[in-house]
């Protein structure tokens, strides 16, 4: 078990950022080339050269290609029409058809975006090659200059790692102590301790302190791993990072005590933990931004301490915010700590 506690953050931080990335690669493409010209080959080459696609199927007709999708061999179909090269060079205009398998909606839409981007690039280079005067005279489509602030390359690891650190902290400082207190309840050692002069408050604090320390160590492991493995260094100050961590740890261990007060067996405790963990993670913005959730879900998320610390961690890591810029979050997290711990004390008294 002690090894587990340290292995857990390491594993999460080493594995999750790679697995839980939105960057979609290895999309399987089915190609229907009705033209078989130099230019159609160039287009297919341009698509494969992007690195996102691999051609898994070459069909003669749309129906054949559709079958390969049914067999799960390909995710997208690109159909290049007859006279593709001729129509481009004469300036008649061509329609290239792309169909995507939207069973996995994310994969379909991302693949579609990628392939459209490649085709429009291809289009532009052809346009300037064959119709230089048209290109010069402003017929060129609007060019979008993309620039991503704070995370230049839209690197998902940069985005995920600070959020994962929050998840680890929640488990280690909130849910592990809850399970451990309930375990003592179940074992009867809690009762044995209750007939000793040790006050209950001391007992609970003694149960929590090791987890607080482990939590701080886990965060430090997270900081080191994100530096060594992902080359991430917080843009903000360390004291801001640890300051927020400590405030959060107090709050979340309060929640842990609340759980341990209501659960009588490990089974109950795990059920409650699972329930909270699901809601906390789904509504935290770890995977999908909270702003794009329906309003009622945003309201629930507003009461999710995980969400607030994730925002804070990302801000510290990517934007370099200090306490001043995060004052609202600081107040919210302190409010959580006060609320959870008050509830913990009240519910503890009641169950006695």
């Amino acid at each position, binding site marked *: 078990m002690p090894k587990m506690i340290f292995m857990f953050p390491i594993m999460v931080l080493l594995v999750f950022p790679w697995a839980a990335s939105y960057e979609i690669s290895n999309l399987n493409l089915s190609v229907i080339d009705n033209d078989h010209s130099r230019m159609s080959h160039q287009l297919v080459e341009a698509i494969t050269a992007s690195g996102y696609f691999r051609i898994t199927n070459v069909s003669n007709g749309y129906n054949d290609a559709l079958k390969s999708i049914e067999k799960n061999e390909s995710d997208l179909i690109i159909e290049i029409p007859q006279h593709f090269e001729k129509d481009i060079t004469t300036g008649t205009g061509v329609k290239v058809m792309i169909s995507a398998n939207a069973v996995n909606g994310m994969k379909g839409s991302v693949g579609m975006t990628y392939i459209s981007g490649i085709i429009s690039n291809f289009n532009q280079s052809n346009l300037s090659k064959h119709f230089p005067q048209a290109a010069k005279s402003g017929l060129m489509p609007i060019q979008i200059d993309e620039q991503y602030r704070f995370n230049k390359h839209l690197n998902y690891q940069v985005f995920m790692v600070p959020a994962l650190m929050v998840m680890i902290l929640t488990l280690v400082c909130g849910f592990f102590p809850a399970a451990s207190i309930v375990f003592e309840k179940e*074992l009867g*050692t809690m009762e044995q301790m209750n007939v000793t*002069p040790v006050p209950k408050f001391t007992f609970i604090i003694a149960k929590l302190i090791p987890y607080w320390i482990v939590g701080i160590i886990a965060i430090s492991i997270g900081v080191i791993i994100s530096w060594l493995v992902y080359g991430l260094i917080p843009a903000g100050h360390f004291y801001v990072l640890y300051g927020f961590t400590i405030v959060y740890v107090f709050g979340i261990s309060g929640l842990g005590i609340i759980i341990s007060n209501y659960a009588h067996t490990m089974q109950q405790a795990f059920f409650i933990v699972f329930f909270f963990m699901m809601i906390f993670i789904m509504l935290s913005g770890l995977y999908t931004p909270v702003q794009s959730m329906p309003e009622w879900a945003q309201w629930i998320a507003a009461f999710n301490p995980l969400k607030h610390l994730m925002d804070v961690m990302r801000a510290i890591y990517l934007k370099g915010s200090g306490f001043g810029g995060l004052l609202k979050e600081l107040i919210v997290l302190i409010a959580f700590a006060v609320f959870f711990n008050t509830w913990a004390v009240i519910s503890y008294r009641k169950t006695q």
Partner: protein
Amino acid sequence: MNIIHNNNIAVSCAGISKHYKKVQALKNVSFEVSKGEIFGIIGPDGAGKTSLFRILTTLILADNGTATVNGFDVVKNYKNIRECVGYMPGKFSLYQDLTVEENLEFFATVFNTSIKENYDLIKDIYVQIEPFKTRRAGKLSGGMKQKLALSCALIHKPAVLFLDEPTTGVDPVSRKEFWGMLKNLKKQGITILVSTPYMDEASLCDRIGLIQNGSFLTIDTPEEIIAGFGQRLWAAHSKNMNKLLTDLRSNADVKSSFAFGDAVHITLNEDYKTEQLRHELEVKGHTGISIRTIKPGIEDCFMELSKSEKY
């Protein structure tokens, strides 16, 4: 006997009641235990033994009534009580992942004392488990677990020791040994409250309380309780024991009949002779009949008392 200000009283209860949602666990229980006494609380499972112990060790609050332990009120002075009592729950509840020695040290520290300070008290018990002191408590055998639990309950030299069914699930040899240890502790002046479902352990206590359905049937010395049986008791045998029991129960002149091991213990109406009974049983087809008078035990008394309680 002066109830409240008697320095000789270790534990006293007055009108203690306790109920859980639907079950009335204790009904108006009152009793006293003198200092240095081994007091046995004897009754079947669910009689209220554990509830009573939990109230006296300040783990739960009674609905009604007052109780004192070592002169301290269980509600007002619960902190003082926790310092001067040792409690050994029925379920083994020490830290299983700590070794024997670590457990003992831990509980010594919790009580602000050290193993050395009270080693005399636990020496006799501890030497038996000392060869295994580096073994984890969870890996000990049942008898050794019990000895460790007792050592941990004694490490702070408590004035009153509460033992909740210490011999349940323990082999007969260890049980005998355990009672030997209690006798030694008594010599050191420790008051011991022990609960047990085994009637045969009653005679090892100084005084016993027979408890059933949350109230005491009687509280007295084992000898007095047996003397109070007040009737002749017979043990009946025959070849067909099952039929014997039903036949005895259907006989109006047999006042009570209970199966006890290999015999049926019966009491008879006063003018009913055993010869008559023997004859009637022979008529009903019994062979190998023997009816002899025996000395009643605590169990007989318990049965008799619980019967009169019911009807």
